[in-house]
């Protein structure tokens, strides 16, 4: 873990400090669900960037786990380095835990001034869709047809979200299969 986070991080056994969580609440697991699985020995991990007035905490489980061992990695940062600190947490969540950007709490990204680097998180959904439509409109038709492989970050994010949904709820496999078979049916839902 320390090697992944870089130098300066300290570990202790115990709950993280109070603060703002990097993930949206709906994407954090309930402590009661985790407690049931603790017999086999998983460890709940939190990563906390500590500032003078605020702590930013990354963890995939809501605080309050009673039976699992809890490990917290912390590092103190000056307030002037909040951008660097939050970016470290985001990179950890995205590259190590492979979470989609949609799960991040946009307010933390906005507070840290990282909207330039993660516009997908900050912008309102309709603005993102509008920009994508504009970009798709600008692209020449030939590229649009061939461009599936080069869809870039958005396709990757969508794949992550769908994989995540299918892992949680197998019934989504059927939903995705139907959409792939007949994409027009999806359009009907929105018109």
């Amino acid at each position, binding site marked *: 873990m320390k090697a992944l986070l870089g130098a300066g991080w300290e570990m202790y056994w115990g709950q993280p400090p109070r603060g703002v969580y990097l993930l949206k609440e709906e994407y954090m697991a309930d402590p009661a669900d985790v407690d049931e699985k603790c017999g086999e020995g998983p460890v709940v991990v939190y990563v906390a960037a500590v500032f003078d007035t605020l702590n930013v905490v990354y963890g995939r489980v809501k605080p309050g786990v009673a039976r699992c061992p809890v490990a917290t990695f912390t590092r103190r940062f000056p307030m*002037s380095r909040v951008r660097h600190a939050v970016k470290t947490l985001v990179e950890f969540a995205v590259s190590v835990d492979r979470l989609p950007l949609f799960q991040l709490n946009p*307010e933390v990204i906005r*507070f840290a*001034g990282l909207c330039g680097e993660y516009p997908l998180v900050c912008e309102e959904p309709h603005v993102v869709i509008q920009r994508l439509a504009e970009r798709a409109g600008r692209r020449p038709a030939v590229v649009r047809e061939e461009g599936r492989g080069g869809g870039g970050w958005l396709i990757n994010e969508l794949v992550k979200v769908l994989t995540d949904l299918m892992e949680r709820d197998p019934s989504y496999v059927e939903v995705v299969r139907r959409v792939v078979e007949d994409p027009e049916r999806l359009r009907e839902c929105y018109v």
Partner: protein
Amino acid sequence: MYRPRVDPCIFLHYDPGDWVELLGEGLVKELLSRFRHVAVDVDGLVRYAAEYPEAFQLGLRGLRVAGRYREEWMLYVEGGYVEPRWRARWPLVADGGVVDVRLQVSPCYLLTVLSDGGRRYIWRSRAPSLFKWVSAVPRSRPLEVFRSAFPLWLRELAWARGYSWVAWSRWRDRRNRHLAEWLYWLDTGRMAHIDMALGRYRDVYEKAGRTNHGAAEVLYESS
């Protein structure tokens, strides 16, 4: 410990001069040190607050505030909550007009962090008219979003008849005081009650000055 001479609504009042005057230089300096990563001066700070009012609250954690507005500040700093009530005291216009728009939430409530369903429900239950114009409460650049979303006839009503007329008009058995605050904010980017307290909203100040209380400060009190 800081003693601002204004409530947290100042963060939706986009006037850097008023920030310095009402928050005090000490508090502004503290805010600049907390937001150094996104703003270099007061103008930048005001711009940042206008852009992301909810994220702005994160940087205020642990701020210690005293004075007349202490409770409101504590509620906002520690709980991310600003009351949805009206604040501006408009001079009486006894016309008995009716504006059929249900918007019984002050624009100040935009500062509230929508962390739970109860806070979201206040928007839906007290300001359902708003959701004819926007699909969700915007969490970035609310002034720009609402300026383009509000129907023109409503804004023209305020330009033609005045904000006070709107404030004293009725929606069912209630006055449209909140709506008048919205229309003033959309036109000026400033909070009506703060402008009144500073004596900048001239006609309101002069008329209300003839009441029993002469001092301008009396106009601006938390009800």
